[in-house]
């Protein structure tokens, strides 16, 4: 009916008529109910029982009391595992960078020599990221046995996923005008790469690698729990032997390592920018 008088009274766009309004409200209600249902099922599945937390808090307090004060006399014995943890991360990051760099060049749309190389390297990068570092560690343990070496390898391969993707994105977003300019001067491809591409992207690549090192130090702690050695393994041993004062000392050390790595990596990245 309204439509017949439309020329004199044009309807405002986006203001639905009665039926439309009802449908919109109904859709909204359903969406809200669905969201509530999702949250409730999550609470049921994780068996969330806050009352247990309240009744059990005394146990936690007891544990913390027994962990105090931290046993600083054990400090010298933590030196070697600490070094191991940091070195596993360092080694892993280096391995990751060495593998990720050529992959990233193939996986950058503006550099890749062929579509096949592009898709193959993208697939490898995706695979290394999709498989968690713990699984990689288990795989490498079967090859080289327990110890820090498989841990470092696992971190390296898993790092390829993130490093490769971010490296490739950096290369793709690079300003190509200077590169084309160098090509036109008669420079060879490898010369263009070394004198044009490398100086342009190196700071970003270093920044990304430092960020990854910071993450790898945290992963290296967790890998220690499953046998890669280092401070994670020492923490697990102390827990199993109920040496809670040593546990608290190790937690302090881990806190210091993580914080130092994070600040150091951030400070270095700032200088690179």
């Amino acid at each position, binding site marked *: 009916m309204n439509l017949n008088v439309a020329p004199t009274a044009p309807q405002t766009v986006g203001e639905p008529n009665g039926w439309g309004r009802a449908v919109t409200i109904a859709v909204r209600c359903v969406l809200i109910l669905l969201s509530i249902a999702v949250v409730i099922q999550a609470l049921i599945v994780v068996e969330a029982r806050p009352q247990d937390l309240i009744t059990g808090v005394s146990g936690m307090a007891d544990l913390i009391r027994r962990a105090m004060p931290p046993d600083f006399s054990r400090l010298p014995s933590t030196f070697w595992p600490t070094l191991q943890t940091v070195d596993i991360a360092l080694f892993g990051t280096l391995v990751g960078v060495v593998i990720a760099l050529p992959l990233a060049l193939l996986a950058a749309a503006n550099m890749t020599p062929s579509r096949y190389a592009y898709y193959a390297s993208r697939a490898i990068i995706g695979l290394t990221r999709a498989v968690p570092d713990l699984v990689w560690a288990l795989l490498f343990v079967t090859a080289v046995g327990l110890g820090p070496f498989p841990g470092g390898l696992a971190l390296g391969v898993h790092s390829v996923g993130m490093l490769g993707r971010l490296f490739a994105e950096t290369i793709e977003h690079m300003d190509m005008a200077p590169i084309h300019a160098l090509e036109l*001067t008669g420079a060879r491809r490898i010369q263009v790469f070394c004198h044009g591409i490398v100086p342009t992207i190196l700071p970003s690549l270093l920044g990304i690698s430092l960020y990854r090192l910071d993450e790898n130090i945290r992963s290296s702690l967790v890998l220690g729990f499953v046998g890669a050695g280092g401070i994670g393994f020492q923490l697990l041993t102390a827990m199993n032997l109920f040496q809670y004062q040593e546990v608290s000392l190790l937690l302090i050390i881990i806190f210091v390592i993580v914080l130092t790595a994070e600040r150091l990596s951030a400070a270095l990245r700032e200088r690179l920018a």
Partner: protein
Amino acid sequence: MLRVCGLSLRYPNGKVALADFGLTVEAGELVVVLGGNGSGKTTLLRCITRTLKPTSGEIWLGNTDLCALAGEKLRRARLELAMVWQHASLVRRSSVLSNVANGALGRHSTLRTVFAGLPAEELEAARRHLADVGLADLAEQRAGTLSGGQAQRVAIARALAQQPRVLLADEPVASLDPQAAEEIMRLLQRLARSERIAVLCVLHQVELAYTYADRVVGIRQGRIAFDLPCAQVSREAVRGLYIGEAA
């Protein structure tokens, strides 16, 4: 020095960008190409650098026909052909000096430039070229910190490091203020005279063409509209270049 004969380029979609185009630039001469947007000016330069492959025609650089070459031979022949663009296209994170020295890369052996950089005499030469464009004191600065006019002068110094016989310039002053634009044009004119370089420069600023060009070539719809010594170019002829394009 640079001689273009019967140059034609037809894009795969059938559009004719250049039709039977010819021009000559002698050593020591500054030739300005004027024309509206889409008239084929940039296509012409891209054909000369062989970034685009012309459908037919010859491009003689000295005694070499660039159109007959490909691959490594083309790369060697192109060493004598330098180019500057509207934007300086410098490696922003490298120093001004290494940006200039980059122009000489093509003349040196691959291994050495990959691992050890350029030989000392090239850095000396690069400093001289920087002095030529009046920026000797900025050699160690990062290229990313330069102003537009300075960056463009560094781009010209990089072109000089190439020791070219022909210098192509594609709207080299389009993003510069009037004063910097005058400086760049004066520089191009001086280089043409003193270094005996053949300079072919595409411009949008008619006044600059009148002031600095030895000859002016008008281009319209991919064809030559006129090719005259600067003094003989009438205002009407120049206006005609732009009116036709708008219609």
